[in-house]
């Protein structure tokens, strides 16, 4: 079996485990860490598929998500500290 495709299968299985933590997590922080880990998993899958399909234009999607993926996590964390968001 191709190692690229095997790695994408493994990463999709781990993102399903992240989904279980997002659904069942007792606190908000568990859900937040699960979301952040899922962003990393899917960015890795997109990069691996870009190398496997030999089309380097596909890296742009992973690049945009890697740049913008932390904004939501920072906003939710700043809300959970109790401060106002616009200060």
């Amino acid at each position, binding site marked *: 079996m191709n190692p690229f*495709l095997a790695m*994408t*299968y493994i990463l*999709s*299985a781990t*993102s*399903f485990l992240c*989904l279980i933590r*997002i*659904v069942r997590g007792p606190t*908000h922080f568990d*859900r*937040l860490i*699960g*979301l952040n880990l*899922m*962003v990393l998993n*899917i960015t890795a*899958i*997109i990069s691996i*598929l870009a190398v496997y399909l030999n089309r380097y*234009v*596909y890296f*742009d*999607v992973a690049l*945009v*998500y890697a740049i*913008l*993926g932390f*904004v*939501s996590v920072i*906003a*939710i964390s700043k*809300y*959970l500290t109790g401060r*106002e*968001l*616009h200060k």
Partner: protein
Amino acid sequence: MIIVFLIILVITALIAIEMKDLLNSAIVLAAFSLVLTFLFFSLHALDIAIAEAAIGAGVSTVLFVVAISKTRRHEE
């Protein structure tokens, strides 16, 4: 691999509706947007995937969190 993400998409959509705490709904909706980005990517629709990534991760979640902080957080 695609079928796993389709299952995750349906589960996140149902959970985002059913959560009572609206901040949890915002987090699950961010995960929904993430999986939708990957599904657009796997359909080789790159421009739509980039637009969904920028809007879903950058704008939409922050907008929901600001709206929750201005109003009530728990759904009755």
